[in-house]
């Protein structure tokens, strides 16, 4: 049950890369999870949703791509229209 800590790690990385004020535009966060990473993808997505529920990133969903190996990486974020139509 270390997925909560990993979700916080993902959140920290995303915040470092998304320009200030544009967090609400993030629709999707692409994360690569290796089959030997020791991570449960469902639990990771649940934890990420829980810690972002009251933040501007609440609309962002983890798009988890399973790979062979041990990889655990934040690949990219996708920005769309901000929730509520704010550009």
């Amino acid at each position, binding site marked *: 049950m270390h997925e909560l800590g990993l979700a916080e790690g993902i959140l920290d990385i995303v915040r470092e890369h*998304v320009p200030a004020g544009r967090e609400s535009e993030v629709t999707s966060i692409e994360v690569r999870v290796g*089959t030997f990473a*020791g991570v449960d993808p469902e639990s990771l997505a649940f934890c990420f949703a829980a810690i972002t529920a009251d933040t501007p990133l609440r609309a962002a969903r983890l798009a988890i791509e399973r790979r062979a190996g041990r990889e655990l990486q934040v690949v990219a974020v996708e920005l769309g229209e901000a929730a509520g139509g704010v550009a």
Partner: protein
Amino acid sequence: MSVITIERKVLEKNDAIAGRNRERLGQHRVFALNLLSSPGAGKTSLLERTLDELGGKLRVAVIEGDVQTDLDARRIARHGAPVVQIVTHGACHLEAQLVADALDQFDLAAVDCLVIENVGNLVCPAAFDLGEAFKVVVSSTAEGDDKPLKYPAMFQRAAALLINKMDLLPYVDFDVAAVRRNALTINPALEVFETSCRTGEGIPAWCGWIQDRVARLRG
């Protein structure tokens, strides 16, 4: 729609600290092992046996990781080894920073081998590098023989597997050959030792492996 490319490891902070731990251990030529198993596989008993076997041959220090209590550190201290207890207060694994803090409390110049006994858990500790040379996984005959298949990440990352509590073999349905086969399928390079802390079976072979590795490191 726009995309920001990131490509960063989620555990990069832990990995960076683990790298510094590894460097620090390397400076003092300390051979470090990260000992992993589910709760109750016999990690602490194995350590006690190991300390007795290596007494007078190698200077072994121990970091004990537990969710609560310093019971294990007290057991280890009775064998005369320098020991630091890390209490995680609920966390299910050790992280590199906790080990970095513990390293401050040892005289590393007076240590040949450091054994880090991780929190009993076959899932989470696999992902966290602590700066060790090798991970060693302990699986006991009382746990059943399907552990390598159920927890492949741990077995894939380990350098050695200790099949412990061999003295219980007559009383349990445990297929040693199947465990070896399954573990070696996941990780063909795995060194496998069959041990018993009650009879002492396999302890000299396991300690010989440690001594061999320390000798290689210290030239």
